[in-house]
Structure formats: C-alpha cells, structure tokens
C-alpha cells in the first residue's frame, strides 16, 4: 500500500504544480463572484432611462399617459425607498415598530394602499421623514434611481398638425439615432415615439364588432429597440390608454368607475403549499423555488469536475504509456498498486479542486449576502440547511470512480493522445446528456425522464444530484445507489484486467473481442 501511496503522492504533487490546476481552482469562485457582482451592478445601474416623444393629435389621452408614467415613477421611487430603509434600519426590531406606525402600513412596495398614501402625502420627502428615526445615524443619503422613462419635448421644427404618416417620417432620423436631442443638459437618443391619431375614438376595438380590423390601424409605437417592446414603455402606454378608454366606457354606460376599480382590485390570495414540508411551515416561498433549482449548480460542478479530471487522468496514463515510463513503474509496483495510486492521486486532485470551490463559494456567498445580495443569502441558507454538499461528495466520488474506470481502460489500450481522443469523443457525447437535461429535470424532478436517467449508472450521479432537493422516492435513492456501486466496482475490476495487459501493449488498439478475452484471463 505504501507504493500505491507514493504513486498517488506523485500524481497529486505533480498535478498541483501545473498551471491548469490553479486556473481551475480559481475559475469557479471567480465565476460566482463575477456573476453576483454583475447582478448587483445591473440592479444598481438599472436599465438606462428611455427617452420618448409623445404626440397626441386627439388631445384626449395625453394626460392619462403622463399621469400613468408619473405613477410608475412614484412606484419605482417607493420601491427604492423601501429597499433603502430595509438596508439601513437601526436594528431588526425597528422594522416592526415602523411598520405598525400608521401611515406606512406595511413596508411592501407592491401594496396599492402604500403607493396611494405615498403619492398622496408628498412622496419621497414624506417617506424619508417618516422612516428617519428608525434608520442608522450613519446611513448614507438616499440616492434616487434613474427614471425608467422620460418624455422629451418635440424639436421646434417638427409640426404636429401633419398626418401621422408624415409626422412619423419627420421623426425617423431621431428614432434611428441619426439625430440627437437636448434634454436637460444632455444630448439624448430618442428610443421611441408614440403617435396618437386624431380619430383615436374611432379606432377603439369593442367586443361584438366595431372599430378597425385588429392590427391594421391604431396608436403607433415607433421604436428601433425591439427588446423594449414586451417589457417597458409600450406596456405602460397600452395600460394607461386602455385604462382611460375603459374609464370613459364606464361613464358612457353609466357605470360608477370608482366602484368598478374597487371591484377590479378585489381578489382572493392563493397560497402555494408543499405537503412535504413540516406542518405549519408548508408555505412555498422564493427560497423553496431557489432550493428546487439549486442542485443545477451542483450538477454543473459535478460535471465540470468529473470532466476535467477525466482529461487529466487520460493525459497522465497516455504520457506514461507513450514514454514507456510504465515499464519502470511496473518493475517497482504491481499494476494494481499503480492503478490504485493513480485513482487516489487524481481523486485527491479533484477533491482539492472541488473542496476549494465549495469553501470559496461559502465564503463568497457569506460575504456577498452581508453585502446586499439577497440571492446569495438564500443560496447560502439552502446550502446550510439541505444535504446538497454531502450528497454531492458521495456522487462525486462514485461518479469519478466509474468514469475513471472507463478512462483507465481506454487510456491503457491507446498509444497516443490522438488515438485516445477519437474514442473520447464518444464518451464526451455520452457525457453531454446530463448537461442537456439538467435544466429540465428540476421542473419534473420525479418525472419519467428523471427516473429513467437515474437508473442508467453513468447518469445516476448527475441525475440524482439534480433531483436531490425534490425528495425522490426511496426506491430511486437506494436502488440507483446500489446499482451505481455495483457498476462502479465492476468497471474498476474490468479496468484492472484491461489495464494490466493493455498498458504494456504497443501497436494497434485491441479489438473488443480481444479485450473480452483479457477479462476472462
């Protein structure tokens, strides 16, 4: 065993000296840190302000749109203020005192009441005055987020009394970015133009017919930026215009619009509950959602680590084989000792790498969650409360041994890396499956795809890792584990036989039939 240890130690210390090892060691933590930072940065810098033109030839919808956008702005401000308050609270208890104090009701930016109180009482200054006593004395001053949308006055040379078509033609240079416009102190690009025709009343589409054929005529929204179409300004405008039109419809039909609005705001909340959670805590929250998807990270980690150490192992065997060092080794150690030494040495490299990844992930998440990343906090909590890390360790070791067995057999019968690569291509393709399915499995963690893949030993580690947080049935957990262990042991036994003979062979790789004969021998 001493000799196997010596072999393992050499493998470990030599690999640890390579540049690839250190790059690998720092790659994952760096990726996590960067992705968190990018997220934070995006949240902080927000989407840039969209500048737009609004021309309302009908002169009936403009105020509604303006006020809707203003309300949107107030909502954005409120959300930022609530966030600011939560982050700068004197202490956690201050929150409950603050929340119980009358005007702010709940500190929920989604609450309609809070928004109305907020706008009604004077917005930002009112809010800041209210929360001031509950904030830390050293709290930084509140910084207003940039407005999402900003209406820009038309340049003086544009005449608004032309037909919509001509108007659009006049505005195109601005919309295409060929011309810029001064707004405030900056030259800005115009992102969109909303053109409302004079006869907008005739364009209303009503149930039961009437109005133009849908999609042929209406308010025109011009923008070169298509990605904006679904999320931003267009939706706001559409909501505002429809609201205004409906308001008028209510009036026309003699309905009480205030009553209708109240009716529209009535709802019964639906609670998501999970029967598998403890009684009294069945409510599903965002942490549960994150929890269901958290294993994906581990599947990826598992895949990356197994994949990269497979390459290492293959290179290593081929080096010894092609340079014939193997012969000297085999005059000093038995093939069994050599194989065990190799397996352990390379496994130790993999474990060091993965261990470093996990530790640094904890450190980074801990640091970032203290540093305002909510997701980091949630992930950290999940890692601490679930069995993901131990489950990962078990599947890493078994998965590694299984794949290592295959690589040892492959490496020992090939003479050059080039020769081995053509066989590796097949293995790589087989290994792509868990990567392709890892995003789907959490949606149906106990569905047929997940279950079938779990019972295929080469996929068991990845798939079961993928399902780890979804309480897979016991028969799957135990059954696949037994199958995996048997299969791994079998592969290693086979590798031992093939390794012993293959490693000294030169010339063409053997045929399958010949290898089967080795297994019998």
């Amino acid at each position, binding site marked *: 065993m001493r000799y196997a240890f010596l072999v393992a130690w050499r493998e470990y210390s*030599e690999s640890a000296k390579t540049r690839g090892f250190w790059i690998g060691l720092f790659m994952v933590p760096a990726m996590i840190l960067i992705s968190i930072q990018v997220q934070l940065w995006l949240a902080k810098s927000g989407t840039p302000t969209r500048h737009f033109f609004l021309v309302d030839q009908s002169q009936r919808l403009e105020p509604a749109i303006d006020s809707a956008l203003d309300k949107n702005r107030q909502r954005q401000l409120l959300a930022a203020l609530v966030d600011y308050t939560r982050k700068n609270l004197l202490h956690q208890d201050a929150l409950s005192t603050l929340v119980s104090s009358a005007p702010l009701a709940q500190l929920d930016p989604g609450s309609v009441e809070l928004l109305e109180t907020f706008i009604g009482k004077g917005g930002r200054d009112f809010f800041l005055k209210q929360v001031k006593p509950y904030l830390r004395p050293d709290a930084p001053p509140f910084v207003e987020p940039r407005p999402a949308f900003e209406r820009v006055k038309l340049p003086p040379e544009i005449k608004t009394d032309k037909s919509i078509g001509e108007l659009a033609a006049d505005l195109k240079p601005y919309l295409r970015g060929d011309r810029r416009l001064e707004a405030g102190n900056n030259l800005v690009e115009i992102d969109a133009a909303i053109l409302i025709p004079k006869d907008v009343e005739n364009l209303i589409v009503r149930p039961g017919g009437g109005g133009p054929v849908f999609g042929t005529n209406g308010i025109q929204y011009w923008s070169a930026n298509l990605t904006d179409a679904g999320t931003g300004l267009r939706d706001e405008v559409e909501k505002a215009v429809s609201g205004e039109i409906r308001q008028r419809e209510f009036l026309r039909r003699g309905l009480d619009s205030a009553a209708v609005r109240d009716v529209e705001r009535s709802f019964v909340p639906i609670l998501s509950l999970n029967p598998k959670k403890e009684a009294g805590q069945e409510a599903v929250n965002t942490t549960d959602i994150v929890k269901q998807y958290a294993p994906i990270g581990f599947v990826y980690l598992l895949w990356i680590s197994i994949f990269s150490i497979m390459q290492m192992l293959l290179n290593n065997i081929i080096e010894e084989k092609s340079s014939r*060092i193997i*012969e*000297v080794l085999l*005059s000093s150690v038995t093939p069994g000792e050599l194989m065990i030494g190799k397996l352990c040495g390379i496994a130790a490299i993999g474990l060091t790498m993965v261990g470093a990844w996990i530790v640094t992930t904890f450190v980074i998440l801990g640091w970032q969650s203290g540093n305002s990343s909510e997701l980091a906090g949630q992930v950290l909590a999940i890692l601490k409360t679930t069995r993901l890390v131990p489950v990962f360790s078990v599947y890493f070791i078994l998965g590694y041994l299984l794949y290592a067995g295959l690589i040892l057999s492959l490496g020992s019968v090939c003479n050059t890396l080039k020769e081995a690569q053509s066989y590796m291509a097949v293995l790589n393709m087989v290994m792509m499956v868990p990567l392709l399915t890892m995003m789907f499995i959490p949606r149906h963690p106990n569905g047929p795809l997940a279950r079938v893949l779990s019972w295929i030993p080469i996929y068991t580690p990845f798939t079961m890792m993928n399902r780890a947080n979804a309480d897979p049935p016991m028969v799957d957990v135990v059954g696949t584990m037994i199958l995996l262990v048997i299969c791994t042991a079998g592969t290693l036994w086979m590798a031992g036989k093939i390794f012993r003979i293959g490693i000294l062979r030169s010339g063409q790789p053997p045929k399958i039939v010949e290898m089967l004969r080795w297994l019998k021998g």
Partner: protein
Amino acid sequence: MSDRPNNDGAVLEFRNVTKYYGEFKAVDDVSFSLTPGSVCGFLGPNGAGKTTSIRMTLEIIRPTSGTITVLGRPSALEVRRRIGYLPEEKGLYKKMKAWAIIAYFATLKGMTRKAAKQRAYELLERYGLKDFSDKPTDALSKGMGQKVQVLASIAHDPEFVILDEPFSGLDPVNQQVMEDIIRDMTSRNRTVLFSTHVMQHAERLCNRIIVIARGRKIFDGLIADAKRMLPRRVRIETNDDVSPLRQLSEVVSMARIESPGMPQWELQIRDNVDAQGILEICFDRRIRLHSFNQAEPSLHDVFMQLVGSDAKEARFR
C-alpha cells in the same frame, strides 16, 4: 538497498521458460542462470525475445510455462527493492525535475524520501549533471535524459541490475560513462545483465554472454568459448602472389579483404595448426609480408556466425 551477500546461489535462473503471445512463440524453452557478481551480455537480433525475457524476469509479464527464480525468490516483486531496471524504450515525465524523478523511482524501490533525494543529487553531481538537477526533464538533451534514467534505475544501489539496450542513443562519451557505471557496479560485486546490439560493449564488459535468436537460446558461455567456435584466422598484407597458400592443407579458405592500400588477405586455418607455421610457410615461399596478424575473431564475427541468418529475416513483433 541491501548489502547482504547473496548465499542462495543464482541471482537469476530461467528454467524451461516459454512465452506465447497469442500464436506467436516469443520465448522458446529457455534455461540459464546467473551467478552473483557476474556481468552477462544478453545478445540477439531484433525480435529474438530479449525484451520479453527481461520483462518476464521482472514479472511485468508472466511466462506461459517454465519457472523463473530471481534472487532466490519465485517472484521478482518480492525482491523488487534489490533489482534495478532500465527498459529498452526510454522515457521520463516531461515536467518533473531530474532529481525528483530519480528520487521518485528510488522511493518506489523502498528508499525513504529524504535519503532518495540526497542520493539523487549525489548521483547527478557524480555524473556531471549537477547543473541540471533542478531542470524539468524536457529541458534536457536526449543523452542527458537517458543518463538520468540510468541513474534512476540504480539509485537504490540494487544487487541485480537489468539494463535493456543501455547504450542505444548515447554518444561515445556517454557510452563510456555508461560502461563506467556498469564497471563500478561489478567492482562492488553487483550482478549485471544487459542486452545490446553493439558487440564491442559486450566484449569489453562481459565475461559471459547468452545469445538468443527466434526465442531460442543458441549460445551460453564465456566469450572465449564463443570465439573458439569460429575457425581461427590469420590476416596478411602483401603485394606478392598468395595463390600458393591456397593449396596448403592447413588453410581452410582464403579471401581478399577489401581495404585501401596494400592487398590484405584473410586465411581461415585449422584448429590444430599453429599460426607460426603459416608464417614459416610464407618465408619458405618467398612471400614478403608487410604485416602478419593472428586475428582473433571479434564478438561481432561470433554474433554474425551465430545469428546472421536469423537476423536477416528477423521480423518485427
């Protein structure tokens, strides 16, 4: 490392060893034994079965039939610490430092890590590679790399060293170094078995040779005995007519040797004839000799005689 004297007779003994690779008989019923302290040349053309025999000795592969005893044990692995091995095809870990490779192989032979490291530096210094001790081996020349590998195979000071083609790829200076290493070992009563194609080395170093061809042992004995198998030869240099010599009953055959300058002739003479007699006959016949040599057959001649036909048709395995 073991300095204890070996009292149990042969260092290596092959008894009716046969090895098949599939249908191919690589080694065919070979038997021999090596006494302690001897230097034995293992000769034979390509594909004769030398490397297979060596691998079986080290138990890297097992014989199909027959027994091999190494240092009195049936398994080389039991005594692996007392054996050193330099394989035919040489290679080193490219990124490892020279000293680290020597030390690694020495630890695999049972030395402690500390002792192995010290020994590695010592050997590198002794054989002129001090400045390269801390260099990765891919920064070394081929010859230096090979030297490192030789040192790695003897770092643990083995009792029995097996060197497969130790001279191939070395320049004359390093060939001399290799010879010195072997002589140094034999002077300390180590047993050396080495295979080679270059007969001069065997001739200078060995007291005994084993020749195999096509898997079969065809000669086993002292070099002098091997040479005695060839007819004795006399070489003369003269401008005169030598045809009268051809008629003599003492002369088996005579052939002109291609050489620049004065014509040279080689005469094979009968075993019972004194070479001095030939000289006297030349005087009698008024053949004026420019030179007269009692040419002892070289090992090369012996080798060609023994395996010449085999070597020509030797096939690649």
